[in-house]
């Protein structure tokens, strides 16, 4: 029994770790899409910031410098996306795809030029990466049945970025639903003409949303290469930006439900790792690929309206042309 309990705890613990970048990226996507800009480029921004964080952390020796570089890299790409799709009213999806492909190649070319290793950055020592934090009294309280191990294994022992990511969720909720900026943000994604008529700049609001998204995506990338791992590796996001996008849809563009979707997808990922090669009595071995495919399948089914309905912000995907 206690073995099973511990296994469940460790799986949930892994869930938190793998959900963190998803939560951050999905929140980034939430700002962009709520403002009416579709953000396929989450994947690319994450990958670029993972590379920037690992490179700068390796050279400077500080994870915080890496984090700063990650945010700068991600925000620059967000501005490129804005320049193409807001200023020049180019296709938002084409622009996002361009960013993803560009970054996939660029990280490898620059890695090769700077570190002489194709698609790798030097391994980081403990001083130049984010380490797990043991929360106070984790050891002392471990003897308490049920709650003790939960505190020790599940809640304690993560890097600061994990706590930061989950702290962001209520903040995002508050910004989107309880502030003037949030009201305008939602309005510009639903009906930009009304916002424009009210004398607010659609362009400025959308750029602001992209900047916030850029910062969040930057943290997500830095988490991947300087907290969850200690190195940048080729294509290390491996589709997590797209999973975050799926979670954003699955959570219907609302911060708390999006977080839950991220946790669900993260849990499936953790489960797939744990079930690898395990034979369950009566069922047999569950193919890992099936569990891996579940997030995508769920999103497709949801989008098709078979379970509930996912309705995107009305103006998402359309460039705003101010009448002259």
């Amino acid at each position, binding site marked *: 029994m206690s073995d099973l309990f511990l296994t469940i705890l460790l799986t949930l613990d892994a869930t938190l770790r793998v959900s963190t970048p998803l939560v951050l990226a999905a929140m980034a996507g939430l700002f962009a899409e709520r403002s009416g800009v579709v953000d396929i480029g989450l994947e690319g921004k994450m990958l670029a910031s993972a590379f920037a964080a690992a490179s700068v952390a390796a050279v400077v020796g500080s994870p915080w410098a890496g984090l700063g570089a990650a945010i700068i890299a991600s925000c620059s790409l967000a501005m490129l996306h804005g320049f193409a799709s807001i200023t020049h009213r180019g296709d938002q999806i084409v*622009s996002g795809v*361009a960013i993803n492909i560009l970054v996939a190649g660029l990280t490898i070319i620059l890695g090769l030029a700077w570190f002489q290793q194709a698609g790798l950055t030097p391994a980081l020592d403990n001083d130049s990466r984010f380490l797990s934090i043991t929360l106070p009294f984790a050891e002392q309280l471990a003897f308490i049945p049920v709650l003790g191990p939960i505190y020790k294994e599940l809640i304690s022992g993560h890097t600061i970025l994990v706590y930061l990511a989950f702290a962001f969720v209520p903040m995002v909720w508050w910004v989107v639903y309880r502030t003037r900026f949030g009201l305008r943000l939602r309005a510009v994604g639903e009906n930009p003409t009304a916002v424009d008529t009210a004398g607010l700049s659609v362009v400025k609001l959308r750029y602001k949303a992209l900047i916030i998204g850029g910062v969040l995506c930057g943290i997500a990338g830095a988490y991947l290469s300087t907290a969850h791992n200690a190195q940048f590796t080729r294509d290390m996001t491996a589709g997590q930006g797209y999973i975050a996008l799926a979670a954003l849809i699955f959570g219907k563009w609302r911060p708390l439900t999006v977080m839950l979707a991220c946790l669900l997808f993260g849990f499936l990922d953790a489960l797939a790792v744990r079930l690898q090669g395990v034979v369950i009595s009566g069922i047999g071995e569950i193919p890992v690929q099936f569990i891996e495919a579940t997030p995508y399948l769920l999103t497709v089914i949801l989008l098709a309206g078979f379970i509930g309905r996912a309705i995107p912000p009305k103006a998402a995907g359309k460039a705003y042309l101010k009448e002259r």
Partner: protein
Amino acid sequence: MKRDNRIVWINRLLLPLLNILTAFAVTAVLFWIIDVNPMEAAEVLLYGAFGYEEGIGYTIYYATNFIFTGLAVAVAFHAGLFNIGGEGQAYVGGLGAGLAILMLDPTLGAWVFIPASIIGALIFGGLWALIPAYLQAYRGSHIVITTIMFNFLAASFMVYLMVHVLRDTGQMTPQSELFPTNSWMPFMHDVAAGLGYSIEASPLNLSILLALVCAVLVWFFLWQTRWGFAIRATGKNGSAALYAGINPKHIIIVVMCISGALAGLVSINELVGYQHRLIMDFHLGYGFGGIAVALMGRNHPLGIILAALLFGTLYQGGAELAFEMSNISRDIVVVMQGLVILFCGALDYMYRPWLIRHLAPVPKQEELSGVAI
């Protein structure tokens, strides 16, 4: 020249040219940043792609894939749809081609195998696009998101099949057994030898002819048939097409099936033409590359063939570059694809206002003949 004509020239020639030049210029800056002389790199690249027969063979072989995926993306673009799922459709198309070959009696002749594998690739690739198309047409889900999801679903599905079902026992890597020799798409060097010419061996095979035929068929279909007209009308103005009695749902279904089927044909060149077995990840990068090819080729079959040739050159030349220079790898091609998609796609009209202002300025008030811009 009249102002209207000048605007046409700006849109059709000057703008695309400037966009491509910008993409090249940014690449040159990147070369300079990583301390590689761009001219020297271009020389190595061109030699690799065209300097010797085998290199030329490889260049055209890669271009073949890009023609298929470029056409696939372009057909969808003409209906106003963005098929980002070429990767998945090419992968699943490979399953169709592979199954067609592996399930037939191995003693049959090439005249059975090759059409069967082509039909298999067409059907499987088309079906993989049909589901997102149906969901977009009848359930209202967005085709871009669904096709992205289908890329990942295809990857998981194929890994499962390759590892658990189709794996050749005796092999460490997940790959199917070798296709029977009769089913191979003939190599160009074998065909040339049969005709009395001698050229160096390369993976180039007769699939290039299939690609060119597809390009002609796509042109004919889009510009010479009633269906093609309906597709282009829907893409240009959906509501006008609807009022003209064109059913947009049918258009979505037809266009996506054609698009997926074309992407599926990548497997004919890769698997039936060269690898001769079902392998993992043979499709990687071609689906996304097709987006760059279609945008650069302005969605016209002729443009697509030229753009595909350019990317084939970059692919093959890039391999030579990686071989010759230690501080660069073939991924430079991926960077260029990204830049082309950025400048020829998302930033397509960046220079337009500037060009119009300088080359075709609005006539002064008194000269206006009453026609607005």
